[in-house]
């Protein structure tokens, strides 16, 4: 009986076919999927902040791009996947609100996207597809059989990347 595995905020999970994996209502957060086209096991992490080293509270590694991505890679390796074969698809990082004079605070979406891209770059994991930015929320769902990432937003047609 196939099911859809949920990933919450600052959370990560592994998924094996025929299950699919999803995270709902991505705003300024980034939803990242790591997969291998030679496998039907994949993983998703929902990160909220770019960098764990500047924060005092780092008790939840999935919350940060640097520790979250690394943790997901490690978990996938434990499932038998090889780091060198991993690919990525990502979405989110929207700017949900715009307030003049608010400084950089509301640009966190863009900074999260940057941070995830940088870590993936460091780990030499190619980003196959990405749907980041904009000013709207996204729900994403990944199927480790088709390797397609479904993106749903209010008032827009569903799209696959």
């Amino acid at each position, binding site marked *: 009986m196939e099911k859809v595995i949920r990933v*919450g*905020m*600052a*959370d990560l999970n592994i998924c094996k076919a025929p299950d699919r994996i999803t995270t*709902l*209502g*991505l*705003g*300024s*957060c980034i939803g990242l999927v790591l997969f291998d086209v030679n496998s039907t096991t994949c993983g998703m992490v929902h990160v*909220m*902040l770019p960098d764990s080293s500047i*924060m*005092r*509270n780092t*008790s*939840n590694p999935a*919350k940060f791009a640097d520790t979250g991505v690394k943790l997901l890679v490690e978990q996938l390796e434990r499932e038998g996947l090889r780091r060198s074969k991993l690919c990525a698809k990502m979405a989110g990082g*929207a700017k*949900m*609100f*715009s*307030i*003049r*004079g*608010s400084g950089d*605070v*509301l640009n*966190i979406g863009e900074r999260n996207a940057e941070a995830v891209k940088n870590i993936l770059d460091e780990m030499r994991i190619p980003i196959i597809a990405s749907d980041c930015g904009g*000013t*709207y*929320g*996204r*729900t994403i769902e990944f199927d480790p059989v088709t390797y397609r990432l479904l993106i749903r*937003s*209010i*008032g827009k047609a569903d799209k696959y990347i």
Partner: protein
Amino acid sequence: MEENQMNEFSDMEFDVLKEISNIGTGNAATAISQMLDSRVDIEVPIIKVMKFDEMSEVVGGAEKEVIGILVTLEGDIDGMMMFMTDKYSAAVVINRIMGMEFSELTGALSEMQVSMLTEFGNIIAGSYLSAIAKLTGLGIVPSVPDLSDDMAGAILSVPAIEFGKVSDRVLLIQSVFDTDNKRAEGFFILIPTRKAYKKIFEKLGLIS
């Protein structure tokens, strides 16, 4: 308050936030009554500390379409505040302001509707800010608000990320108000920065 004890609100801190929100809700009832030109009854607000994901569930699910109004803060206290409501409740407010028969909001909000709701959110934010100012003597300047009509999870990601910098939990104030025999529900999230919390508690003599 230790900087590394940020994970949970202590009972004392929680009581202070409850007090602020009780006064704020009282102010809001008066202000909303004036704006809607109608008697408004606000039930005692439910104030809870919860994990990020619980927040989405409490408001009806991460994919539920809601309206969020955000205000950033400057002055003695910096941070942000958000007021959030579902489309039914927004319709109650809009129709009441316009003096019209109740009708649901369908499709995208018009400029006028955005303007009315933004003002509504502004008034509520102002109610909580004056509660804080009254209790602490601190001056706070709110920004011009911005409104987003989108999935609850996406809108909540903004305050969640702010809380996320120091904690794994958020403080949510859930308020139900009745007007014109209709029930409207709103959620309020106040996110002072860590520094600002310290100032509030210092002013209240809770820490030295």
